[in-house]
């Protein structure tokens, strides 16, 4: 309908009508892609047009990179038909590319060019890029230290929590002893143990591992336990009449039936262990991204802080994604699971 009025206004000839129609359909299909390209060109121009108000070495390269992204967006949109799945992926993300390009342009202008936002608290994009290029070794060391600490603590906490949860869900005697302890100690934030842990453990690293394991272990225990406890008796009856022994009932009935609950616990544990990780690194470990943040603050190196924050959020998000994909693999039998 809109195409009709458009062609009406242009001319009355039949061939021109169809050409206008084609243009309109093309614009509807590819308009967002073109817009993305425009937004990134704007970002590139905003980098190169004015002089920086401060002294940043990556402004020029950032502008070039923005143009390259703009070019990729444009050619990817125009040639979408020849690019197969890559073209489709680009098409799907085009609205986000527009938003990002626009945001970066505004950010660039508001910081590096006219300093509407106070420096140095709001560093421009090129300052953050500069951190990634010039401070890479230290950042990578920190990433490595964080991942190592988090992974060790999380795996220990998840394993111990899972085993404890299964035992108290299964055995009345174990439940009798462990349940009150769990109720008393579990709700305490793991960070409350921090001062004690740091002088009772032989090293700050082992203390932090313990704290992360503790933060992970509590939700995993409680949810595994409630998962095992809520398994329908009908399943046990079926298995027993088919000749199942107690070990089979635990391993092949209780645990698989409880697995959806266990994963909820694992997700909650992951969240709370991130918090402990950062605090432990800031206060005790002197390594890792938490410590890097602390160090950057000490030097008023705000760009470094933002750079570390971005890396940290990528890592946390990556960990959650990984856990989701493990869950999706193990729980394919569930219908309608949440997509992350």
């Amino acid at each position, binding site marked *: 309908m809109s195409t009709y009025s458009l062609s009406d206004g242009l001319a009355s000839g039949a061939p021109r009508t169809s050409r206008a129609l084609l243009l309109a359909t093309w614009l509807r299909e590819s308009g967002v892609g073109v817009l993305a390209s425009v937004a990134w060109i704007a970002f590139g121009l905003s980098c190169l047009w004015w002089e920086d108000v401060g002294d940043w070495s990556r402004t020029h390269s950032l502008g070039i990179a923005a143009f390259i992204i703009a070019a990729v967006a444009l050619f990817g949109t125009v040639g979408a038909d020849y690019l197969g799945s890559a073209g489709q992926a680009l098409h799907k993300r085009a609205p986000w590319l527009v938003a990002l390009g626009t945001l970066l342009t505004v950010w660039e202008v508001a910081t590096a060019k006219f300093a509407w936002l106070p420096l140095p608290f709001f560093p421009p994009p090129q300052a953050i890029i500069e951190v990634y290029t010039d401070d890479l070794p230290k950042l990578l060391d920190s990433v490595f230290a964080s991942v190592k600490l988090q992974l060790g603590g999380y795996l220990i906490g998840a394993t111990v929590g899972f085993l404890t949860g299964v035992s108290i869900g299964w055995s009345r005697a174990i439940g009798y002893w462990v349940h009150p302890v769990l109720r008393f100690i579990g709700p305490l934030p793991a960070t409350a143990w921090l001062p004690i842990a740091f002088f009772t453990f032989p090293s700050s690293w082992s203390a932090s591992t313990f704290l992360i394991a503790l933060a992970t272990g509590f939700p995993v225990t409680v949810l595994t336990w409630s998962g095992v406890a809520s398994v*329908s008796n*009908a*399943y046990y*009856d*079926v*298995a*027993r*009449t*088919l*000749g*199942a*022994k107690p070990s*089979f009932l635990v391993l*092949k*009935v209780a645990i*698989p*039936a409880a*697995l959806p609950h266990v994963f909820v616990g694992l997700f909650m544990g992951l969240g709370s262990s991130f918090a402990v990780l950062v605090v432990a690194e800031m206060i005790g470990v002197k390594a890792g991204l938490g410590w890097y943040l602390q160090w950057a603050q000490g030097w008023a190196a705000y760009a470094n802080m933002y750079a570390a924050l971005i890396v940290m959020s990528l890592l946390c998000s990556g960990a959650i994604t990984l856990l989701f994909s493990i869950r999706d693999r193990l*729980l*394919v*039998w*569930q*219908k309608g699971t949440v997509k992350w």
Partner: protein
Amino acid sequence: MVGAALAEAITHPAAGAALDIEQVSHAFDIDGAELPVLSDVSISVEPGEFVALLGPSGCGKSTLLRLVAGLDKPKAGRLREDEERIRSPHPSRVVVFQDPTLFPWRSVWDNVALGLEAQGILKRQRQRVDDALDLVGLSSFRKAYPHQLSGGMAQRVALARALVNDPKILILDEPLGKLDSLTRITMQAEIVALWQRKGFTTLLVTHDAEEALVLANRVIVFSERPARVKADIRVDRPYPRHRGDPYLADLRRQILGLLGLDATW
């Protein structure tokens, strides 16, 4: 005289087991009060017989089946399978419940394999799982998950999961109760065919007098809770039986009368 199928079953005496329920009484404790559920029930089932249990809802039929399966112990009396006391569940007595209770985390094939896996003989006898799935006509759904099945298909899988163990006594607790009438009739025919082929002893709880009469050699009618045996009726009719058979219609009237429903007939 028993039906032709029973005669055939008796030619394989190993297939079905005898079941003796001797003066069994049972009760549940509900908040300190005792709820009597079974009162001095005695039933003696021949090997390969197909016995239907009918009774008012809540009278204790499922409770009796759980005792036969060995899932619970009676407060008084004894149950014996081929002269041996029933003390715990055993794969020679398998139950198909009203809900299929398939394990949702296992594929159809893995659900059927459950019994063999639990007994630790799956590795050597995988063929039996395929055969059982063939038997209920669901080979092409071996990889499906329970939530992808219809009610009738799920109940067929539950049947295959029971049959794969080559039970001597098959215990069916209203297995067709929740199915639509078309699926029910088809599955009734399938159950009779399976029973004739395999010769196991069958105990079927149903609330449908017609179903009992189309399927069973013998119909036992229970009283209100606590359940007592009110009548023990032989059904001497060859298979396949016809729903319109006047002999069965007569028996049906008689049974409904016993259940206190004579007014409607």
